[in-house]
């Protein structure tokens, strides 16, 4: 009985939804009018691919003067809907010759090189060697001006005698951020939590403050994508008589946005 009631409730709920879709026989293109950016093809034609990538085949061609809606963007590709409700993917380069309702070209930035004014954020991950052990780190940086960025990073050093976690904040100075191969220097400070490894008596974990300076370089590969490698010299200000020195080199991938 209960099952029957549940089914009846479901049917009742479903009816208005079906009725609505039956009522509204307009095209999706018209229903979404004003919801998405609408442009007109100004090139002789615009190719639609099956997916967001050059290796997906072209399945349809939209001719000049036809209006299209831009649903959303994924990397360098736009999901497009034409007035017959066909949906496909168009390359950013092909979209440059489309016109807005005002007759102006659709303003699309070409991400070939870092423009720190437009894309101040950068994030990446690196791995390498910290004082003889391994280290993994992730960082997030924000360009205050084109050649000075503030950076925070989290690192996990996995050594033979101890493991540690570091939380770092620093400044990165890039003299020529417009170069494809851009060297930088950085300086910063942070906190480190050290877990010493011992098999018999485990010493307690320590919290220390540290400082670092370093040099490195970024190599802009393609679009938002870059390689980064750097060397750093750390001083750990211990609570004991002597401070500890650590050298670190690491390399990894990053992207800006």
């Amino acid at each position: 009985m209960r099952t029957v009631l549940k089914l009846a409730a479901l049917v009742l709920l479903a009816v208005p939804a079906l009725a609505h879709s039956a009522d509204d026989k307009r095209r999706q293109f018209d229903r979404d009018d004003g919801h998405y950016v609408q442009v007109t093809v100004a090139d002789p034609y615009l190719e639609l691919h099956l997916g967001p990538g050059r290796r997906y085949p072209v399945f349809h061609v939209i001719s000049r003067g036809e209006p299209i809606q831009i649903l959303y963007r994924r990397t360098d590709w736009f999901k497009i809907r034409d007035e017959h409700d066909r949906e496909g993917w168009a390359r950013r380069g092909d979209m440059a010759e489309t016109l807005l309702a005002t007759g102006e070209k659709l303003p699309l930035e070409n991400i070939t090189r870092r423009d720190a004014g437009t894309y101040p954020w950068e994030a990446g991950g690196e791995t390498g060697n910290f004082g003889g052990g391994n280290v993994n780190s992730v960082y997030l940086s924000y360009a205050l001006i084109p050649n000075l960025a503030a950076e925070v990073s989290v690192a996990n050093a996995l050594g033979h005698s101890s493991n540690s976690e570091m939380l770092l904040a620093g400044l990165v100075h890039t003299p020529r951020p417009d170069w494809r191969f851009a060297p930088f220097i950085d300086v910063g400070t942070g906190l480190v939590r050290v877990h010493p490894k011992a098999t018999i008596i485990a010493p307690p974990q320590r919290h220390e403050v540290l400082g670092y300076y370093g040099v490195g370089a970024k190599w802009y590969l393609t679009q938002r994508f870059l390689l980064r490698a750097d060397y750093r010299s750390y001083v750990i200000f211990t609570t004991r008589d002597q401070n500890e020195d650590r050298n670190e080199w690491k390399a990894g991938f990053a992207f800006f946005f």
Partner: protein
Amino acid sequence: MESRLRVLLLIVCAVALGGCSMWPFHRKHHRAPTQVVDTIESDNPTAPIVEPQVTRRKVHAPKIRNSNFEFGGSLGLLNVEDFGSNGVGNARLIYHITEDFFAEGIYGESRLGLTSYERLSGGARLLTDAQRKVRFYTLDMGYDIFPGEVYVGKRRTFNSAFYLVGGVGGTQFGGDTRFTITVGAGYRLILNDWMAAHLDVRDHLLDTNVLGSMRSTNNLESTLGVTVFF
């Protein structure tokens, strides 16, 4: 004394760095247009000849939604060498950098089973319950090597991609965290504009001495998951 010198050097370095940033390397891009002084003589030398009355139309870039991130979770099996297979749960964040490459961060948890020694010896336990908890993170890069389409039934098609991943991370169990290299492959099925299903197989390579001597181990993980694009 040496540490004081070091601190002093660090401060000098910081100040120099700050100073360097003021150096006008970038000024050529941001130079203000030079004012052209009108030198034509007229009755009133201070008044400009032509008052420019140009009001520039502001062009607003239309807002197109970006959808480059994926966030989701997956469930599956993790085999830890010598400790058997156990369930594993992951949370993952993916950023599509280009149409081919993506960056991914994963956090996962699992538990260790019993070694065959522990099972055969009766009561002997090598690790405590707390030490049997496995936590790991992975930072990796992926490459969509075979993008494609799949056809489900007569009417439905879905975009898909077979991808390769490689990365580094850390794995914590048995009272220690170990550096881990991860390699694997996966399959992404894009269900609609905002959702995808993933099938992943990864090998976590790490050195461990939990069972006495230090040796390299291969730990296979296979998971099935769902992600949401945003």
